[in-house]
Structures are given as structure tokens and as C-alpha cells.
């Protein structure tokens, strides 16, 4: 397939002798919203770290387009990573800087934009995530959900081609979570961003995913891939149970 923007080929992830996932094989297409789901601790964040080169595969490789990221040298990796934006599970905002400075840093380092233009971009990105007016706040002055959204503003500062998001809605209330889902969809529609999302929020998966990959922590491999509605209705038992559990307290049939 030529429209694959990111390919994971036969990837095995391990910490020392402890294998987390084995034989992962999937492709992410340009312009899609690809969701990686699975129970807590199954290795979703670890997979993300592998795709970003923060951790080296025990076996297999990751390709950006046709180019192997795993085998690329430092300079090539840097070039490939320039096309990427990341929102970490813990936000990872730089605590000594204000929100505006956090979002501005990538722009200052990697573009030649004027200070005034950068300020405009920063304001827009913060407004996109609903943080208009919080430019001069420091991360520790914000709630966890606000930090998460600020992290997203920083991740999209450079209009990345691929946006990686670890648990977008983890610390957000449902309406804010849905708004974030909408934003992710709009980013894809308006700017053509490919989005890779790690989450176990079922509502969000059904709402945004073009396709989803289910990682099974016990089997240590991916057991299903496809459009979320299909996985929910016709997937393996485990996957259907995962979706059903997310619907919360259903009245028990009496």
C-alpha cells in the first residue's frame, strides 16, 4: 500500500527479558485517525514510544512512509521527527515556561516566523484547545485537563503531518473530551493531519477512529483491527467485551 504514512512491521517490544508485545504488524494511512486501544498496562504507551524512537524495538521496525525510522541515523531521525507532533500521557509541559512560551518554542526553533506572527499562531492554537486567555499561565497553575489541552496546543504548533496523542480524554470531563474529539477530527479534515491516538475511552474511539487496533495484554499481541463500529459489533469476544464495559452501568435485565 503506497498511501501508508506509517508502517509498523513485525515489531516486538520488550524491557530486558520481559516481552510486552510481539509481532505487531499494521499500517496507518495518510489522513486517517488511527486508534490503538487495549487495557491498562498492555503496552499502548510503549508502542507510542517505539514509533517515536524513544525506545528501540527488540525486533522488527517502524517506517515513516517508505523510509525505515528504526534504521535511520540521528540526522535522518531528526528530519522525520520534524513532521511529528506528540501529546504525552502526562502532558510533559515545560514547567518553567508559560503556556504561550511552551507553544512558541517549537515555532521559534524550527521556523523563521516573526515574533508577532508567532504570537498570533500561539493565540490561535491555544484558542483551538479552549485555552484562550491563559497565555501567561504556568503549567502548575492549571488543572490536569487544562494541562493536557495545553500539551495538545504545543503538539500542533508546527502543523505536524502526524500527530500522536496518548490518552487525550484521560483527565477530561465528558463534554470537554467530546470537544477534544471534535478538534481532532477538524484537524484531520481542515489540515489533513494524520492522527494516532492511544486511548481506552470507548465513546471517543467510536466517535473519531477511522480504524482501531486492539492490543491484548494477556496474549501479548494485537488481536483485532478495523473500523470501530465493526469491532464493537463483530469483533472477537474480548474486543466486544471491552466496548460493552465502556458503556458503564446498564440496567440489568430483570
Amino acid at each position: 500500500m503506497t498511501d501508508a504514512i506509517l508502517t509498523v512491521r513485525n515489531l516486538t517490544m520488550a524491557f530486558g527479558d520481559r516481552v510486552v508485545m510481539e509481532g505487531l504488524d499494521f499500517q496507518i494511512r495518510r489522513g486517517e485517525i488511527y486508534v490503538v486501544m487495549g487495557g491498562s498496562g498492555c503496552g499502548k504507551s510503549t508502542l507510542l514510544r517505539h514509533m517515536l524512537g524513544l525506545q528501540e524495538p527488540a525486533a522488527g521496525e517502524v517506517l515513516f512512509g517508505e523510509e525505515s525510522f528504526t534504521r535511520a541515523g540521528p540526522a535522518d531521525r531528526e528530519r522525520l521527527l520534524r513532521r511529528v507532533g506528540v501529546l504525552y500521557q502526562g502532558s510533559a509541559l515545560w514547567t518553567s515556561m508559560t503556556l504561550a512560551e511552551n507553544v512558541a518554542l517549537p515555532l521559534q526553533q524550527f521556523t523563521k516566523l516573526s515574533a508577532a506572527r508567532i504570537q498570533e499562531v500561539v493565540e490561535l492554537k491555544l484558542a483551538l484547545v479552549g485555552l484562550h486567555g491563559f497565555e501567561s499561565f504556568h503549567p502548575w497553575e492549571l488543572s490536569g485537563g487544562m494541562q493536557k489541552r495545553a500539551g495538545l496546543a504545543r503538539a500542533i504548533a508546527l502543523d505536524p503531518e502526524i500527530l500522536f496523542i496518548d490518552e487525550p480524554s484521560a483527565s477530561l470531563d465528558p463534554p470537554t473530551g467530546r470537544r477534544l474529539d471534535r478538534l481532532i477530527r477538524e484537524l484531520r479534515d481542515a489540515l489533513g493531519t494524520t492522527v494516532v491516538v492511544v486511548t481506552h475511552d470507548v465513546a471517543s474511539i467510536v466517535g473519531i477512529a477511522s480504524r482501531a487496533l486492539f492490543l491484548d495484554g494477556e496474549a501479548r499481541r494485537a488481536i483485532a483491527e478495523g473500523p470501530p463500529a465493526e469491532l464493537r459489533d463483530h469483533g472477537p469476544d474480548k474486543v466486544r467485551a471491552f466496548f460493552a464495559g465502556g458503556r458503564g452501568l446498564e440496567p440489568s435485565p430483570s
Partner: protein
Amino acid sequence: MAREGDQTEALAAMEASREGDSTLLLRLRGTWRLAGTLPSAADVTRELERAGATALRVDASGIAGWDSGLVVFLFGVLETCRARGLPVDHEGLPPPLVRMLALVQEAALPPPSSQAPKPRWLERLGRRALGWRERVRDVASFVGETTVALGRFVTGRARFRGQDLGLLLEGAGPGALPIVALVNFLVGIILAFVGITQLRRFGAEYYVADIVGIAVARDMAALITAIVLAGRSGAAYAAQIATMKVTQEVDALRTLGISPVEFLVVPRLVAITLMMPLLTLFADLMGILGGAAVGTTMMNQAVASYLRQTAQSVTQGDIVGGLVKSAVYGALIALTGTARGLEAERSSERVGEAATKAVVTGVVAIIAACGIFQYVFFLFGW
């Protein structure tokens, strides 16, 4: 999409014309990328004013490609129009863009009460001057809390981890041995050099063993060792505790009902206060050896006779006095280090600041204490 701009891409352009009596029509053409030169919202404002328009229509059918640059521009235009109460018709924009702009505008709530403006220098100076009372109160309450916690430690009721104390003892004691040895040996050498060159003028260089021995045992060993430990352990304590504040580990202790002073301050205080006298005893030896190295080579004196002379001049009181002082310095290092860590705010910048301040405050406190000791020892004729 932030891909390399195609060289043949048409430049972004904007064309304003009147439509009807009162509407300004804005036609956008070309490729709108952040990296290129783009018209700004201010240009639109100017056009609006010149035309005296009361409404705006945007037509983007001529746009070939865009990234955030276009969104930034349109966001600016919409904000301007909203501020002036002008209606905007953006039917002519691509639907995804319209949806995205709607999302931005939804969020464009009135900004939260902006933070207080930065005070001017005179005001800042005044506030600092008035702040000393608070500082004194903070210091007093910290010392008080530590005393209470120490009481609980002595009676075996303090909550802390035994392993932690073990590691801290190791870090403050054996871990510091090599550097303490080196520095004190060098100080012994320096003292002996200065002593011999000055005493020679009176033909009294033979007394260098006495001078070096007494200086090292009474003051120098404790002082130098304390300064080394302020840089080593004091800074480390401050940085570690400040980091624990950033990651909310200190909050986690507090909500568990564990006093951070008991859990973090007391073990460090105990560790370094116990280790300082031991290190100082060792430092005494190294300082005297450093002196001997110079004394014996410069005066052709036998090592044994130099050391015998040192032993005759240095009293037990000198040594014990030095050790007592060193324990006090140790307590000061632990207190300043941990206090600087605990007062840090939740930011990585503050971690570095806490470490720096810990060393500065620690060294100042040690030297001040040394001065006070001189006076007290002098008064009592010790």
C-alpha cells in the same frame, strides 16, 4: 500541512472589493502557508475602514492550499469583526475550515482575570523589605516543626523509612570521604606554606607544626568539610525535595498523614549531623598530614618529630571543640538544604534555584556560625 512548499505554488493574495452598498468582499487566492508572506488581519481592518463597510463576505474559492497560516489570518479577521460588531458571511470558505473556526470561536470566552501586572522596582524593593517578617516567621516555624519531629524521632515515633536513612548516611559519610580527604590535605599544605613563610621572618618557623595542628583541629577541618558537604549534600537535598514537589510526591506524603518534615527533613538532619564529626576527625588527620608534607620537606624535619610536636600542642579540647562545631555545621547544611527544597514552587526552574540557594544559604550560615563560635570560645577561654 507543513510540507516543503512547492516552488511553483502561487503566492497568497487578497483582493478586496465592494459588494452592494455596505458589504466588503474579500477574495482569497493562492497558497496560504505560515512560512510564506501572508496578508494580516490589520490589512483587512484598513480595507474595512476605507470602504466604510458594515458587513464582510469572504470568498476562498481561489485558494489552492493552506495550513494554519490561513486559520490564523481568518481567526484574526473574525475577531476584528466581532469586536466591531460586523456580521461575517463565510459561506465561501471550505467547510472543514468553517467548522474549525467555529470551534475556535466557541472557545474564545472572555479571558480569565489577567494576572496582576508586574510591580515596578521600587514596589518590589518595598515588598522585599516588608517580607522579612514573613521570612522570619517561616524560618521559626520550620525550625519549630523540625524540633518537634526530631523529638518524635528520638522517641522512635517519627515516620520515615529506615532504608532512606541508611542511604543518606552512606551518601553523607563514606561517599564524601575522597573529596573531603583531598580538600583538607590541600588546606593543610596551604596553611603550612603561609605559616612557614611568615614565621621565618621571626625565626620561629619551627612552630609551624603547632600552628597547623591547632588551626586544623579547632576550625579549619570542620569548616572546610562543612563547605564541601554544603555543595555536595545540601544541594542534593534541595534538588531532590524540590523535584518531589514538582511531581506532587510531597503532597502525596501530606495527604497520607505523613509529615514531610518527619519523612524528609529529619533523616537528612540526623544523617549529616552524625556523619560530620566522623568526617571531621578524618579531615583533622588529613590536614595535619598535608601540613607535615610541607613542614618536613621545607625544614628538613623528620616526620616523626613533626607529628610528635603536633601531638604535644593540640589538646583534646581543641579536637572535641572542632567536632562539636562540625555537628552544628552539619545540622545547618541539612536544615538549609531541605528548607530550600520544601519552599520551592512546582516548576523545573525552581529545582535548580533551590539547589543554588541551598548552597549559598548553607555556606553563609556555616561561616556565620563559625564567627559566633570564635566569639563564644574566646569569651569562655576555651
